[in-house]
Structures are given as C-alpha cells and as structure tokens.
C-alpha cells in the first residue's frame, strides 16, 4: 500500500526577498494529528515559512500541499476555509471589538446558528476569558490578547493549527495553561508551534524541527535535538560546522 497522504507537505519551498533567502529549499512533512515544534534563532525563517503556508505571501518557488491538494499561492481566506488556522507572531486581533465578538466572528464560519452561542461560550471557557467576554480586546493585557487570538483559531475548528510564539508575553502560570491547552487540542488536530522558550518546548514537544538561516538544520525527537551540538551552537550564535 502506498504511504498515506500527509496532512502537510512542502517540497523545495523557497522564499526570496531581493537578495535575502528567507526560506531555502524546505522539505517539510507533517502527518495527521502530529504535534511539531519549530525552533531556530531570530531570522531563521520560521515566520516566513508560516506566511507561505497561510497564503500571506506567495513563495518564490516550490510547492505546498495540504492533504494532497496544492495550496501554493492561494489567497489567505481560501487557505483558511480549507482548514488551516494561524496565530501570528504579533497578535492579530480585532482590537476595537469585544472578546465575545472576536470569537463569534471566527466561530460563525463553521457553526450553525443554533449551536453558535454555545460554541462561543465553550471557547471563552477554554481560554479562561468568560469574565472579560464583554470587554474590548484593546483593554486586555498582552497575554490575554494572545489568548483571544488562540481562541479565535480554535473557534474556527481548523484541521491544522499554526501557533507562532503562543507563550510570548505570558506569565509562567499562563504558559503552563497554554501547554495544557495545546496538548488538549492535539488530541483531535495537528499543530505546529514556533517557540523560543526551551522549557515550553520540553513541556509539549515530541518531534522538533530546527530552522537555521532559512534551512532545516535538523529534525528529530526533542531530546536528541536539544542535545545536539549544532543546535546549541546555533542558539549561542556560533558558526555551524557544515
């Protein structure tokens, strides 16, 4: 029997900005229900990779397939409708609307009107923002706004969730809660998490992919990756021995 179609596969994905190669020939495969962590120093190309996956930019060359369907160069809303949800690095929320309206806008794309308010309530409970539901998002703390965005992503019930630095700006307690929720979500969906916080990575990771200078440096289990000398060097800014 032929191998199963992976949830996500990129082949030779390359993104150039003028002379800068942000993503260089990335071959990345993610299976259904997988939880993958993506690490790498600043400028390694992680967020650029996410932008190509969600259609916020069109890759210079290479292909992206989602469950075998080509999505390279499709528009963000088309990709979102196919079932890829993203929490971006800088919180992208509707600042002028209430928490409830933010979640509602996401949930109503998927949910019928009868169960819509129940779905919104469920997400509000999950992200622990029910008491703040009628507050304007702009008045919340940075960590809480991160939650609003995660809540929006969840409310859309995507098949694949991309989280770009979900724990940034959160307290230790909030970070632990985030890790809990990520493991919870992973019971039913695939997730890719970009994060710098190694403690956080250890909490959730199984397989880790390391980006460096736009390329995949190594891809292995979390213990092996974090023990790898090259990964340590990359994070400490040493030159990688080829």
């Amino acid at each position: 029997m032929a191998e199963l179609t992976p949830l996500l596969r990129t082949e030779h994905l390359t993104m150039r900005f003028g002379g800068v190669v942000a993503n260089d020939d990335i071959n990345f495969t993610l299976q259904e229900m997988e939880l993958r962590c993506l690490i790498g120093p600043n400028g390694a190309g992680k967020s650029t990779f996410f932008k190509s996956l969600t259609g916020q930019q069109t890759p210079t060359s290479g292909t992206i397939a989602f469950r075998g369907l080509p999505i390279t160069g499709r528009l963000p809303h088309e990709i979102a409708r196919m079932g890829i949800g993203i929490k971006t690095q800088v919180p992208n929320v509707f600042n002028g609307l209430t928490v409830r309206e933010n979640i509602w806008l996401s949930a109503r794309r998927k949910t019928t009107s009868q169960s819509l308010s129940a779905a919104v309530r469920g997400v509000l409970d999950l992200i622990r923002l029910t008491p703040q539901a009628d507050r304007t998002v702009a008045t919340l703390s940075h960590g809480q706004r991160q939650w609003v965005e995660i809540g929006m992503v969840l409310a859309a019930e995507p098949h694949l969730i991309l989280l770009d630095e979900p724990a940034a700006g959160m307290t230790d307690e909030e970070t632990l809660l985030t890790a809990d929720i990520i493991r919870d979500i992973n019971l039913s969906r695939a997730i890719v998490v970009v994060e710098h916080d190694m403690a956080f990575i250890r909490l959730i990771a199984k397989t880790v992919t390391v980006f460096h200078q736009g390329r995949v440096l190594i891809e292995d289990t979390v213990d092996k990756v974090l023990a790898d000398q090259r990964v340590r060097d990359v994070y400490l800014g040493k030159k990688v021995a080829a």
Partner: protein
Amino acid sequence: MTQRLALFTQALAVVVAAVAIAIAPGMIEIFTLMQITLFASMAVLSLSLAFIWGFGGILSFGQTAFFGLGGYAYAVAAINFQDSTQAIMLAVIVPALFSAILGYFAFYGRISDVYLGVITLTVTLILFNVINSTSGDEYRIGEAMLGGFNGIPAVPTFNMPFDPESPLSPEQSWWATAGTLLLVYLGLRALLASPFGRVIVAVRENEVRASLLGYDPRVVKLMTFILGGAIAGLAGALYVNWGAFVGPTIFSLSLSAEIIIWITVGGLGTLLGPIIGCILIEYIVAGIGSQQTLNSNLVLGSVLVFFVLLIPKGIVPTIRDIATGLLARIGRGHGDATPATMPQTAGVK
C-alpha cells in the same frame, strides 16, 4: 439591563424623530421647511460616507462622484420618462454600478488606502470636467440636454409613484426626503447589527485577521463601497428634487471636503454624528451666506481645526463618553467609575 434601557431610549428617539418629521410642515414656515429639506438630502450623503469610512474603513475623497452621478441620472431619466419613479431607481442603480466597477479595480487590484483616496478624488475631477464640457446640442441623452457648464434646468421634481400627474408639494417633498433619511439611517443600523455588518467592522479593524479567518476582505469592502455609492446616488436624486436643477458643480471638490468635515465634527464611527454634523455645518454655512461679513470657507476651516484639535472624536462620541461616565458614576453611587470602556464597542449609534 443597561442595554435594554439603551435600546428603549433609541427606539423612543426614532419615534420622536418620525413624529417630528410628520408634524414639521405644520409648525414651521415654508422657507425654513425648504431649507431643512435640503439639509436632510445632504445628511443622506453624509450617511453614505459615514458608513463606508466610519464602519468600512474606506476613506473616499470622492463621494460626490456618486452623489453627482445620482443627480445627473435622476435629471436625465426624469426628463425622458416624465415620471420620477424610474428616475429615482436609476439614481441609485447608475452610481451603484459605477462604484462596483471602480471598487472592483481598487480592491481586487490591492490598491492601498491612500491611493484609493487619490483615485476617488481624481474620478470626481474627471467627471466634473467631462460634464462641464458637454455644452452644445450634440450632448444629449434622449430628450435631456446635458448643458455643460450651465447644467440641466427645470428638472421634473418628484411625483407620487407611477403617477406623473401628481407632483409632490413642498410638504410632501419634505416628508419624502426626511423619511428617506430616517429609513437609510435605520437600514444602516440594522445592517450593522447583522452578521454581515459585524464582518464589515471586523475587516476595518484588522484585514489580515479577517482573511486568516476565511473572510475575503475584497468582497466585503466592495459590497460596502457599492452600498455607499448607492446611498450617495439616492442623496443626489433628493438634492436635484429640492432645486429642480443639476449642474457640474455637484461634483465639486469643496463639497467632497465638506462631507469629511461633517463626519469629523459629528463623530467618525457613528451614524447619528454625521447627520448632526451635516445639519449643523450646513446651517452655519447658510447663515454666513446670508450676510457679507465672514467668508464661509474661513469659518468651515476654523471649525475643522477647532474640532480636530479639541474634540477629535466628534460631538456624538464625546457626549456618549461623558454620559457613560456619568451613568457609571451614578450606578456605583461613588466616584470610582471604570475608565471609559465603551459598552457598544462596534460604536453603532
């Protein structure tokens, strides 16, 4: 509880407005009635930009392009059909189609906000110059001579629907105009309260996030823009009905700028504010026009500077903030009111 109270107050305000419109002709003299009929038609124009700018986040410097097209479409059709019924419909359809074409290229071509402003401004200038140079017998549409610089005089005014034999009296014209204003206001309120209305506001708030949730911002903005164009066209028909005349100055840049001043003064992001701002400013301008001491543009400029510097939110949001603050103070019984978190964040007023 407070929401119910707010809803009740608003419903009451609408009833009061409707009654005031109904009894106004009996209370005031005909000259004043004609003047407020003009203000009401301008207020519809104000609403059209208040909607697309305040809620859709689209700043069009050329809302008069659609206003003028509506006016001309009405005039040409009214002369040809000798019945205002179809003419009013055309005054909505023609600008809506035009804004659909213009909006399609702007939004699907990913033109940025600033350039959209420039393009709408330019389109207005082009229309002005085109219409301005249509003097002569060869420029006619059916029976209607476009008249170039002189415009089209003696345009038939509104008649009862499908009954050209019974033209509206000035009182009936007032009811038609003010009634339209009230209906457009209520229609926009209803739209903004609907799911699509919330999506419009969401796209204004964060286009990237809206598209990452699966909404196509191009479609949403185009729909908003077309509706704005249609309303501006309707305002054009009301305006031409008031004066029985349309000329190329309907496309003037000064009027385009005035709409922006109405909204800034009344309050961007509200619907009531731009109506109040429009009527207030037009009242002041009309007052200045009747005497020779002050230049109206000077006064308009000063009013704009005053508001931008001192009341940047505009009249309605400022009053609302003060009222909300007071209510919160009274509700708590002591002084520590929560710092102005607005109860209605989408700002639908």
